[in-house]
């Protein structure tokens, strides 16, 4: 099997995975709990994008923007109304609450759209061959979208006032509070951004395959693996983690039967937690 082809496929898969992984890690860094509701928000985004694209006839880019906006707003609302009251009870309780939320939200999607598979209104193009490697035009588009979104997220965090405030809260919430940063607003921005990115990622996944209410849930393991491998709370880490998981899953085909692909994500989590618990880019736990 062509190793370069496998690596190319892995980069494509990893770049899509990176978007929701950034969302997860951004929320973790500010709100300090692993938000499992990311799965259903990816589904919400995928369906919002589908409605925009297939029902209202928007092209892909505006549909992606709508996916981000709707899932971000749903994320903001669910966090304010459902998860926020849990937070005073501790991390574990909030994480379990988010798990319940994801199941509930997934079933709301099922209530309105049913269990059927849906595809975006998007012509499928044959692969182009570059240097003996097959590359799908749609996947290259997805890669481009991912890179632009990542650049925008980095730009937001490093060059805007609100981005800097978010990093400050993530770094030291108490110090940020003393400096007059309103942690409630930062938490809302983090929820909107995190779940918006999850929804965008959900639609990117759907563009390449098809969507149903379980779209987000199916991707939850590699998304968490990417965030953990990169170091929960580190945004460059989430990108690196997603690429590591994406490429490792594809390369595993050289040594393992295809039916063990998901084992790669588990093994990666296990190895990283054993050898470097803070993740590739995470800071030492204190």
């Amino acid at each position, binding site marked *: *099997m*062509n190793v370069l*082809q*496998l690596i190319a*496929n892995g980069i*494509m*898969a990893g770049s*899509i995975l990176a978007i929701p992984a950034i969302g997860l890690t951004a929320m973790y860094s500010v709100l300090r709990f692993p938000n499992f509701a990311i799965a259903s928000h990816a589904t919400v985004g995928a369906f919002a994008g589908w409605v925009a694209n297939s029902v209202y006839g928007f092209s892909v880019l505006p549909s992606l923007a709508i996916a981000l906006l709707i899932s971000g707003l749903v994320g903001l609302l669910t966090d304010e109304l459902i998860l926020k009251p849990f937070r005073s009870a501790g991390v574990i309780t909030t994480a379990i609450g988010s798990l319940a939320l994801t199941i509930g939200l997934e079933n709301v999607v099922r209530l309105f759209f049913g269990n*059927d*598979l*849906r*595809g975006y209104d998007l*012509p*499928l*193009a*044959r*692969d182009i061959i570059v240097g003996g490697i*097959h590359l*799908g035009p*749609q996947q290259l588009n997805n890669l481009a979208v991912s890179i632009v979104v990542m650049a925008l997220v980095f730009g937001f965090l490093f060059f805007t006032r609100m981005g800097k405030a978010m990093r400050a809260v993530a770094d030291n919430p108490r110090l940020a509070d003393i400096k007059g940063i309103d942690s409630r607003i930062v938490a809302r921005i983090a929820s909107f951004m995190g779940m918006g990115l999850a929804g965008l990622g959900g639609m990117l*996944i759907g563009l*390449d*395959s*098809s969507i*149903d209410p*379980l779209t987000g849930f*199916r*991707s939850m393991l590699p998304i968490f693996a990417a965030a953990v491998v990169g170091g929960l709370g580190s945004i460059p880490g989430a990108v690196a983690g997603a690429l590591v998981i994406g490429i490792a899953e*594809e390369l595993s*085909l050289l040594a393992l*039967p*295809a*039916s*063990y*692909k*998901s084992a790669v994500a588990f093994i990666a989590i296990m190895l990283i937690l054993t050898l470097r618990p803070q993740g590739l880019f995470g800071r030492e736990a204190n």
Partner: protein
Amino acid sequence: MNRREFLSASAIVAGSLCAPGILRAETVIKLGVLTPLTGAGASDGPRMVKAMQAVVEEVNKAGGVIGRSIELVVEDDQTNPEAAVRAAQKLVGVDRVPVIMGTWASAVTSAVAPVCWESKTCLMTVSGADSITQLPHQGYIFRTQPNTALQATKHAEYIASVGAKKVFYVAVQTPFAATMREQIASVLTAKGSSLVGGLIYESNKTSYRSEIDSAIAAKPDFIYLNSYSPDLTVLLKDLYRAGYSGGRITQSYAYTSKVAEGIQADVTDGLITVQPSSDVGSEAYSLVQKRLSNPAADSYEAQATDWISLALLAVQKSGKVVGTDIRDAVRLISQGGGTKVYSAAEGLKLLQQGKDVNYDGASGNCDFNEKGDIMDCRFRYSAAKGGKIELIKIV
């Protein structure tokens, strides 16, 4: 009261208690139906019940079986093993039925089967998992649905018949994925074709590009896609993108009209779909169409018709309403050298005249092997064209 008086009084009381039961038993034969009326199988269960009731009405009008009329006791298995076991225990314990017909999901049938064989009750089912007839059921299970080995054989014969020489097998991880691969390989070899490779993939991934790359590297001219709907969509798209232009075949349950709606037509054009078929065109099938006033009666309605017909003929043949006797009589009326009959009413008439019968049903000829599996059945092949599914042939 002396001893003599006590005994006679007791005998009268006991006799009077038993009498209504005996009288009722002499007039009505109760047979059990356990089928999904709710849950995942709810679209098929009620139609199966209707098909069985139609046969019962016809037979009751013609005078019943061994001089008694038939009553179906219908229970809902909820497509849920736990609910099904409770319902089965009620059927065998309270209603004392000698046969239960209609389990649909393999998990339900596997759960209900021990209840049946322990109580010496026959179980007639549509579930496909190979493991069901491999249970130690002592002959009490009869399955009218082809098992996966029979399906694999027929599919491979079809693939060879369209001229495919190099076939690749792609299957989702299931208990039958590996056994089907072996069966397909041996049939293809016998037919002068070959299986050039196979892979079993993990379900629910968002991309199978690398898997498809490895399949195409084997240069097949035909690919067998043993998948469920979500994965099939991804696989078909990945095959199209990779520029694969050979033949493809999959199960009809994976390529549904909903799946077709979600994929552009030129990606799926030419995809062959296959499913077990009722014996369309046979005399028994046309009787089902007429009885149900449904020209498109499907495989489940046909199989339900066959269960009740086999059970009634077996009761008539053995002369008893006992599970073990029905079990022993089924093969006497479904296969062998007797006169061919295509409905229960027709067969009952001949049996009452002391003649032997061989029931050929609406789902197939209903010949069972020693495990309780049918030995042959027909399959329906269709092709995707312009987003629609068109019938090619039924063989």
